[in-house]
């Protein structure tokens, strides 16, 4: 392996450990925000109005919120994968299949998020209303996001190719 490549790998690890904490904090803060919005706030509101509260609407309300937040929850899975990549890179595991797979998963998460906004959530809402048809909400940003997810997944495959090259170079040495 050349000195340049060796120095770059050290640089990658350094970058990974610099960003590991930031990515973990970003994930948990956002996760707390999303869960708070989905569950904690409805519970707090119900508790505050305990005497007049209508508990029969609580679970349907939370269910509807979870459904509406499905795109965000799917993106959260991408965030989880991103912070795992930083965790591995910080430990020195840069050229691994797991990292390549996680980048692909981030791309898939973007794709599924787009599908959820355009098709899955609107259709599920229609089904909850006891209708058995399909519904589509053609939101441009979501369709573009899905396609960008495809490009990100391709980068994951290129990372996998880099892993093969690195493994091969190590075997030669």
């Amino acid at each position: 392996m050349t000195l340049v490549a060796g120095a770059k790998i050290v640089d990658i690890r350094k970058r990974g450990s610099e960003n590991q904490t930031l990515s973990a904090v970003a994930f948990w803060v956002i996760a707390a925000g999303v869960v708070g919005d989905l569950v904690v706030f409805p519970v707090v509101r119900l508790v505050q109005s305990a005497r007049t509260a209508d508990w029969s609407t609580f679970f349907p309300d939370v269910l509807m919120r979870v459904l509406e937040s499905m795109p965000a929850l799917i993106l959260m899975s991408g965030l989880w994968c991103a912070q795992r990549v930083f965790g591995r890179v910080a430990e020195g595991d840069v050229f691994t299949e797991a990292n390549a797979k996680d980048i692909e998963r981030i791309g898939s998460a973007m794709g599924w998020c787009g599908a959820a906004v355009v098709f899955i959530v609107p259709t599920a809402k229609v089904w909850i209303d006891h209708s058995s048809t399909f519904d589509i909400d053609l939101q441009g940003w979501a369709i573009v996001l899905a396609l960008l997810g495809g490009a990100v997944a391709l980068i994951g495959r290129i990372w996998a190719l880099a892993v093969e090259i690195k493994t091969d170079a190590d075997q030669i040495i």
Partner: protein
Amino acid sequence: MDKKWEDAVIRAAAEASRLQPLATGLFVIALLSVLGSGIAEPLIEAARGERYGEGEAFSEVARNVLNAAPAIALIWALWDARAYLGRLSRGEVWGPATMQMLGNVGNALLWAGILALAVVPTLENWVNGSFGFDLRIEPTNIALVGLGLLLSLIGRVVRNVVEVAASLKQENDQIV
């Protein structure tokens, strides 16, 4: 091993050439949609005197452009992705485009999230004549900001990974 690399590059190129026309088509549709329904339609209707007065039409255009701002940020990334897919389909795997792609997508998601979260609601307030700042805190916007931030950071790592792979590949080719 060389055969294996070539096969992998060909597979990536084939996938890129499938995605590129889709990206181009989507880019054109998205742009026409923003320009058509967001800008041209209110102005045409105002010119015909149908729905809006002249001043109202400009306010409507401003509102439409503002609402479309997060989508415009993503459309910008789509333009980059389209160019990148073109290069990848020609077999340029280890070039600077691969190094920049993920960071560009990350920046676009970050901007789309920030625009939807804070900039658009605030400017909408201003267009509607009331002042002050506003936030539209929705889980999807927050997750977009987070994922955009992390993708931008991973983009920097990818840059180094691609550089290492390119130099190792070159070294290996020289040995062979």
